[in-house]
């Protein structure tokens, strides 16, 4: 009986509206903000499990909002790709919510919870929406709430970073909107399925493709346009920088991936190679810069720049194994990076500073945090037991089978660079020096969430077959199939 009922409940809508309602409630009742926020987080996770069962049972879902069909109405579409990202958001979101309850003091929580749930709803909507303009709206909502969250820290450099991030985000969205306008002009529709059928390689479409890619690259902070990411992620409070690195940056990558797979017309060798090149440059540049940093959070932020570079290496290869590898890297990076930022938050809270050179005897006094940092580091480096290794293995496999061995060298080089800066930090944690500074006790909740997230990053490596099977629902990566119909 229960399963019958669970089937036909419109989980898609619930997953989007729940966080919206939650954020409104948190805004209206600031005293109970913490309890309400946590409760909403858990209910979102539960509803996502319901969606998971629904999709596992009936395959890819399509839901027309308010009954109007494509040309006018907005469609919600969920397949393996978006479902996996939704689950990732839920898992990371849950961890960050629990961490945030212990991290923020009285006045900051009032601002944090409404904005965070707003951001969460924007993410869910973004992963589910099936038309280009709706993607633009979610992108904007995401950008604004993320900027507001960065500005919570209130310091001069936090505000500077927030404004810079806002300007870049708006720039990217406007580019994207102009692209949508051009596409609408030639195809007279914004729904992805219809656009995919009618699209062909006319100059305005090519221009639209270039514009939209540039816009999304801005928001994903790929190599040349990454300058806004490190200050924003480093100066934001720990849970915010965790969700920025883990989720927000991935959303625009998801849109680019979706467009690349479904919408963009002909197979794109030139643009693919260009993106791969930028990705490789990002891996090297991010790694070298991370090695150079003296502050722990800046190091982790530059590590994000490098890891994003990895994701773009899948574009020139463009086989289903490569996409799955990139997606797996995305998933394990989200878990590992959130754990790392939480660990950095603990260290900052504990010692009042996060300069790497003075990480005195942290290993002895914060064993759980250092363990979390090292486990997350194992996943970032891509060493076997972790999820990062699975992603790296799939990408290496795809690269060598496609015969383009230089991508494999970039992957291995990136792994070595990341080993360099991870062990630089872990090495310092074993120091024997006696540093004299007053010490604040770090609440257990913060340490344990960091450790659990890092453990999840490792365990996701051991249960690889299930997420990989999940990715195949709705055949998102068989782009050759629908491309052929009108290519």
């Amino acid at each position, binding site marked *: 009986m229960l399963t019958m009922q669970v089937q036909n409940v419109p989980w898609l809508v619930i997953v989007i509206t729940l966080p919206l309602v939650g954020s409104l409630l948190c805004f209206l009742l600031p005293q109970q903000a913490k309890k309400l926020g946590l409760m909403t987080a858990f209910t979102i996770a539960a509803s996502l499990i319901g969606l998971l069962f629904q999709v596992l049972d009936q395959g890819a879902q399509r839901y027309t909002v308010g009954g109007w069909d494509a*040309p*006018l109405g907005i469609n919600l579409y969920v397949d393996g790709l978006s479902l996996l990202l939704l689950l990732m958001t839920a898992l990371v979101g849950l961890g960050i919510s629990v961490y945030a309850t212990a991290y923020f003091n009285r006045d900051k929580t009032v601002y944090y919870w409404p904005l965070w749930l707003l951001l969460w709803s924007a993410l869910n909507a973004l992963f589910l929406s099936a038309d280009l*303009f709706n993607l633009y*709206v979610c992108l*904007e909502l995401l950008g*604004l709430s993320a*900027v*507001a969250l960065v*500005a919570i820290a*209130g*310091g*001069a*450099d936090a*505000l*500077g970073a*927030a*404004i*810079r991030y*806002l*300007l870049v985000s*708006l*720039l990217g*969205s*406007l580019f994207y*909107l*102009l692209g*949508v*306008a*051009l596409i*609408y*002009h030639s195809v*007279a529709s*914004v729904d992805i399925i219809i656009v995919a059928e009618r699209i062909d390689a006319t100059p305005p479409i090519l221009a639209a493709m270039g514009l939209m890619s540039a816009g999304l690259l801005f928001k994903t902070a790929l190599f040349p346009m990454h300058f806004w990411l490190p200050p924003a992620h480093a100066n934001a409070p720990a849970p915010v920088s965790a969700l920025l690195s883990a989720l927000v940056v991935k959303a625009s990558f998801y849109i680019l991936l979706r467009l690349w797979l479904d919408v963009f017309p002909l197979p794109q060798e030139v643009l693919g190679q260009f993106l791969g090149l930028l990705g490789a440059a990002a891996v090297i540049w991010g790694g070298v810069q991370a090695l150079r940093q003296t502050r722990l959070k800046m190091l982790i932020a530059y590590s994000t720049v490098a890891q994003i570079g990895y994701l773009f290496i899948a574009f020139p290869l463009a086989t289903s194994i490569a996409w799955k590898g990139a997606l797996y890297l995305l998933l394990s990076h989200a878990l590992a990076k959130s754990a790392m930022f939480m660990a950095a938050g603990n260290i900052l809270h504990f010692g009042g500073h996060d300069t790497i050179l003075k990480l005195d005897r942290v290993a002895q006094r914060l064993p759980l945090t250092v363990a979390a940092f090292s486990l997350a580091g194992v996943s970032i480096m891509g060493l076997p037991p972790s999820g990062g290794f699975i992603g790296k293995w799939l990408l290496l496999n795809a690269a060598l089978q496609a015969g383009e061995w230089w991508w494999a060298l970039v992957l291995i080089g990136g792994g070595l660079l990341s080993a360099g800066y991870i062990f630089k930090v872990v090495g310092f944690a074993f120091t024997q020096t006696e540093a004299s500074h007053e010490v604040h006790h770090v609440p257990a909740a913060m340490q344990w969430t960091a450790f659990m997230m890092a453990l999840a990053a490792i365990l996701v490596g051991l249960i690889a077959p299930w997420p990989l099977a999940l990715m195949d629902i709705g055949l998102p990566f068989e782009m050759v199939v629908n491309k052929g119909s009108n290519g």
Partner: protein
Amino acid sequence: MAFFYALTGVALFTLGLYALIIYAHLMRKILAINIMGSGVFLVLVALAARTQTVPDPVPHAMVITGIVVAVSATALALALMLRLLEVSGCEELAEEPKE
């Protein structure tokens, strides 16, 4: 006829882009963002004038949503700028990366 409007829209967009990048003062940057926004909206409206007489309603819907988003974004930018002025006393966006 609609073709010229689209062309001016694109021109506005490029002008706004140029201003956004060159000027350091935050107020100028926010104005530049608005100009780019209006440029895009002009292109959208111009393209809505289909060959047949009655213009196509969907771009208009998009423009309205775009305007709402642009307004809220500008409000947030101005609030942040004022806050930054309060805290750090200068409204230029610091160009050289601090060491």
